[in-house]
């Protein structure tokens, strides 16, 4: 049997099964009116004739007033034989179907499709097959990766918060209350964002301590260490800018104190203070500035520095311990 014939046969059979099943179910399940509804004379109650559509065939032909059996017999024979023919056809098609050649699994086919066009596997092969020594799986080598993990968590939860947060002094506080009280899972997202920030800072320091103790900052890894310090600064800056956003008393005055300290640096202090605050005082300008830093500039800087950091680690490898 060729492919086309099989397809057509299958389609016709499936449609027939569908129609036959529908007809049978309808015929056998349409309900007559409940309870005895004939009067003592065998008549339906006044005003209550069984509606033809709701009365089963069985009702009249077998237990009712019709005595003609040929019509129902012919019906049963024709539809019955058709049904048997259907069943035969289905079983035959199924066995033909099962004998077909197995298709290659979908993931493999997708991979082949992409490789035909972009030769991606070739490109990825050295990266993915790189051998990782056993000692690199000790727990202290996970700290950098965990810092990155928390950064990703922050990016995701931060974006979700940004959907509802309003960065003006008039609306910031209320928008965070809205997030916590009205938004579905808002309080969950916010608390995760808050604690992942702390976790990221701790992991960054822990990672730095590990690298320092193992002396993995020494040549040839100097630039990598500098990239790391940039990342540490960015992480702390994230914390500092993010802290102001709720615009509550703690946030406002913590930022005041922080920027005052920056202002105490000689020579560049005053300029730094005005640059950070967008003026002499903390105002709506400060909030906008901190928000832009927090969601645009710092993420960009961090991603670029992380890219450099990861590329350098990949290229130079993890320093072998003693």
């Amino acid at each position, binding site marked *: 049997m060729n492919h086309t014939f099989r397809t057509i046969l299958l389609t016709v059979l499936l449609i027939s099964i569908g129609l036959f099943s529908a007809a049978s179910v309808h015929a056998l399940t349409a309900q007559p009116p409940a309870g005895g509804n004939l009067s003592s004379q065998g008549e339906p109650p006044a005003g209550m004739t069984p509606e033809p559509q709701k009365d089963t065939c069985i009702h009249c032909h077998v237990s009712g007033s019709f005595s003609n059996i040929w019509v129902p017999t012919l019906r049963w024979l024709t539809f019955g034989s058709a049904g048997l023919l259907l069943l035969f056809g289905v079983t035959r098609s199924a066995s033909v179907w099962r004998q077909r050649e197995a298709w290659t699994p979908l993931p493999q086919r997708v991979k082949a499709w992409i490789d035909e066009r972009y030769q991606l596997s070739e490109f990825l092969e050295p*990266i*993915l*097959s*790189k*051998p*990782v*020594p*056993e*000692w*690199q799986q000790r727990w202290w080598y*996970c700290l950098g*990766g*965990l810092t990155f*993990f*928390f950064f990703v*968590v922050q990016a995701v939860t931060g974006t979700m918060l940004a959907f509802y947060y309003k960065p003006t*002094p008039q609306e910031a*506080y209320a928008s965070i*209350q809205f997030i*916590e*009280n009205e938004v579905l*899972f808002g*309080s*969950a*997202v*916010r*608390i*995760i964002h*808050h*604690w992942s920030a*702390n976790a990221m*800072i701790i992991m960054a320091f822990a990672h730095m301590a590990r690298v*320092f*103790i193992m*002396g993995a*900052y020494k040549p040839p890894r100097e630039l990598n*260490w500098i990239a790391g*310090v940039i990342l540490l600064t960015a992480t*702390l800056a994230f*914390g*500092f800018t993010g*802290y102001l956003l*709720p*615009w*509550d*008393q*703690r946030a*406002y005055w*913590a930022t005041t*104190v922080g920027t005052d*300290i920056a202002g*105490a640096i*000689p020579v560049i*202090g005053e300029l730094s203070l005005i640059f950070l605050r967008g003026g002499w*005082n*903390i105002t709506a300008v400060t909030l906008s500035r901190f928000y832009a830093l927090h969601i645009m500039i710092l993420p960009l800087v961090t991603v670029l520095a992380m890219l450099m950091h990861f590329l350098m680690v990949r290229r*130079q490898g993890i320093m*072998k*311990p*003693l």
Partner: protein
Amino acid sequence: MAEEKNQETKTVPFYPDHITYEAKVALGFGVLLVALGVWGLFNPLGLGPPADPMDTPAHAKPEWYFLFLYQLLKFIPETIGATAPVLGLIALAFLPFLDRKQQKTTRAMLIRGGITLLVTLLLVALSVWGEVS
């Protein structure tokens, strides 16, 4: 430059073995975060009173990761107290150019471990002090 792999070092391929290992670690922490989120559904973080530029609260202080600095500034004059951390950060960045000795001795590692421990304890102590004062 690439790490040497001698005969005795067992290795696993990056994909799928090492990536799966890292994914499991990340998943573990992810589960913790989800648990935290669920807890947060019933105990939200909340906010303090809204910002009031006219009303300075008695105990204004920065977030916990800056507390050590804040506490330090209370007894170091302002100018030095503000510049020292910045200079410290720059010195930290240039550490590889200050310490170039290549020998990887256990002694050197222990010394660095000791320094790290001391500095950590100092920072923690200052932070706690900053929090309670």
